């Protein structure tokens, strides 16, 4: 492989891993926030236990989202300095806003929520999870504004060989960013919904303790998964309207259209191969569409079954299938993302900067060592995290340590003694 391919692989694996964790983070945060709101309003012990159980799974998952996310942020400057130098004045603005307005607060309040359990006033504690959830949305929004710019640059001018932002509003209003934001947000809710339903179904099938808690959770999960699947598909459909011509042509499989797109780009940018890899683009899209069909059918069926009390209590085939469905939204997310990002190739900034030009001047050895190091560490941590997530999900609410005692209770000793 060439150095640029190694750099792409490294970024793709980091971003792909990040995407897996943040999809669940975003969906589960919303569900936890809603459940905690109910628990705070009613002081119902079942909902309080629900908050802690799903909150614990959320926190286990969240840690890897941070780890992969911060590496990704730095990889932009590390391996894609050509991109940063050329277009940093444009999409760097939304990256900066993301870190400061969204992630900074998200992380600060997450710490407050986790460690402030039984320490903060319950309304303040509830406010903390809502701040975490809403800033997570904001984070996704600003990241997709950056991504949308790379997919379909708007509101810029090219001067002295670099881009400058001329219309911030146009960059934010970019339909490629807006549509993707709602699509990803919906996808995260699908992921969270199926996850909650699948884990609950496991406990219902095994007839573990807390049947009431998991019946409630199952209904919430399915109740979210079905509308979220439709919502996501709607914005996915709109997204097809904003495809770049070359991506659309390759996806259609129509050789004449692809040749026309290639000829048009070659006329504008000089000789070269301007078509994205057809295999990846089509496989990504097909994976996403098949997964959508499965999820749509299954969440529709489940929405009916969850209204039938005996089915919720004892239809074990259905429980078993619901648990098996947990990975499907993740597969769909990755498929859609491969479609979107592979379809952008060979461009880093569509029509303006190629991926090869975007790469930092790194040696093949530097790139190989870096790739090997990140892959090794991340692979080990991802496997560990998923094993722990599965373990915590199986063990149920009794084994939850999140919020199980007053943490770090105040002492009478003053902290500062000058």
């Amino acid at each position, binding site marked *: 492989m060439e150095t640029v391919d190694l750099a792409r692989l490294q970024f793709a694996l980091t971003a792909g891993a990040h995407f897996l964790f943040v999809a669940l983070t975003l969906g589960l945060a919303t569900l936890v926030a809603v459940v905690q709101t109910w628990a705070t309003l009613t002081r119902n012990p079942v909902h309080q236990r629900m908050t802690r159980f799903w909150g614990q799974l959320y926190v286990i998952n969240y840690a890897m989202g941070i780890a992969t996310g911060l590496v990704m942020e730095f990889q932009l400057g590390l391996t894609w300095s050509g991109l940063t130098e050329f277009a*940093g004045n444009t999409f760097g603005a939304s990256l900066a806003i993301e870190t400061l307005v969204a992630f900074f607060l998200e992380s600060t309040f997450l*710490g407050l929520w*986790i460690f402030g359990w039984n320490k*903060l006033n319950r309304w303040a504690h509830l406010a903390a999870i809502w701040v975490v959830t809403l800033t997570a949305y904001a984070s996704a929004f600003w990241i997709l504004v950056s991504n949308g710019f790379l997919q379909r640059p708007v509101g810029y001018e090219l001067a002295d060989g670099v881009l400058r932002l001329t219309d911030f509003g146009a960059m934010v209003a970019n339909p490629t960013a807006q549509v993707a934001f709602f699509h990803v947000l919906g996808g995260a809710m699908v992921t969270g919904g199926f996850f909650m339903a699948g884990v609950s179904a496991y406990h219902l099938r095994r007839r573990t303790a807390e049947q009431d808690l998991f019946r409630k959770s199952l209904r919430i999960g399915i109740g979210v998964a079905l509308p979220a699947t439709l919502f996501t598909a709607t914005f996915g459909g709109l997204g097809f309207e904003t495809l770049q011509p070359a991506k659309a042509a390759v996806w259609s499989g129509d050789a004449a259209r692809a040749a026309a797109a290639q000829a048009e780009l070659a006329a504008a940018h000089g000789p070269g191969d301007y078509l994205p890899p057809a295999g990846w683009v089509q496989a990504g899209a097909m994976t996403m569409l098949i997964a959508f069909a499965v999820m749509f059918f299954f969440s529709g069926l489940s929405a009916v079954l969850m209204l039938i009390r005996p089915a919720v209590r004892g239809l074990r085939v259905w429980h078993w299938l619901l648990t098996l469905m947990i990975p499907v939204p993740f597969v769909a997310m990755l498929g859609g993302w491969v479609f979107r990002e592979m379809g952008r190739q060979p461009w880093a900034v569509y029509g303006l900067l190629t991926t090869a030009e975007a790469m*930092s001047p*790194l040696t093949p050895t530097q790139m190989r060592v870096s790739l090997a190091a990140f892959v090794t*560490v991340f692979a080990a941590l991802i496997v560990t995290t998923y094993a722990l997530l599965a373990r915590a999900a199986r063990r149920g609410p009794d084994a939850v340590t999140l919020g199980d005692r007053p943490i770090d209770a105040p002492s009478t000793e003053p902290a500062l003694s000058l």
Partner: protein
Amino acid sequence: MEIFVLAFFALGYLVLGGADIGVGMALPYLGRGADERREVIAAIAPFFLGNEVWLVATAGVLAGLFPELEAELLSGNVAVVVPLLLSWVVRDMGLWLRGRLPGIRWRGFWDGAVVAGSWGLALSLGVLLSDVLLGLHGPVALVPALLVAVVFGAHGLAFATLRLRGELRRRAAVLSGGSGEARTYALTAAALVAIGVLAGLRLPLTAGPTAALLTPVILVVTPLLVAAQAWVWWIFRHRVTGPSYL
């Protein structure tokens, strides 16, 4: 003004994040068994998430206001930035994972990850700073880097003295002597700020054209960010009385 924005977040990271890095470095000294180490970690637990975002924010400020410098600083120092990131990930995951399973070996392993990651972070930050400050590359840069790491370690001990009680606090106070804990913390913080300022003065700091748009936004939100963090500091202002969630 852009330079002050960058300095604010970078120096904020050195002082706040430096404290949890230093505690991680001193973990084997401060906590002699798994339970003691858990209590030491409780000293930084509520803060480390809020501390490390100062470095993420620094990267964000670089990306938005100084994209050329960002590209140069990061891609020009691959051999340092990659270990820095890996150390950061290993340290964080050590903190998150150590309490997830009960076994003594499991805890020992992830405590080791916290220590290794913290040292890795301190040393790679040290190499990066000495590269900027002194223009040193390669193995020779490890000498000033080690000095920087020692400052991080001392800063961590000072922070631990302010947060811990009893025997753990006595161990952490090894450097403070009779001179007062807060004063030691102020001193180590000042040393980190001085290193950061001196390094910053040697960077080519010319803000990009997006500054006109971004700087006002940053100036408006920054008080809000500081207020949110101040709330966390206030909530967890008391000394640690037992293990935390981690």
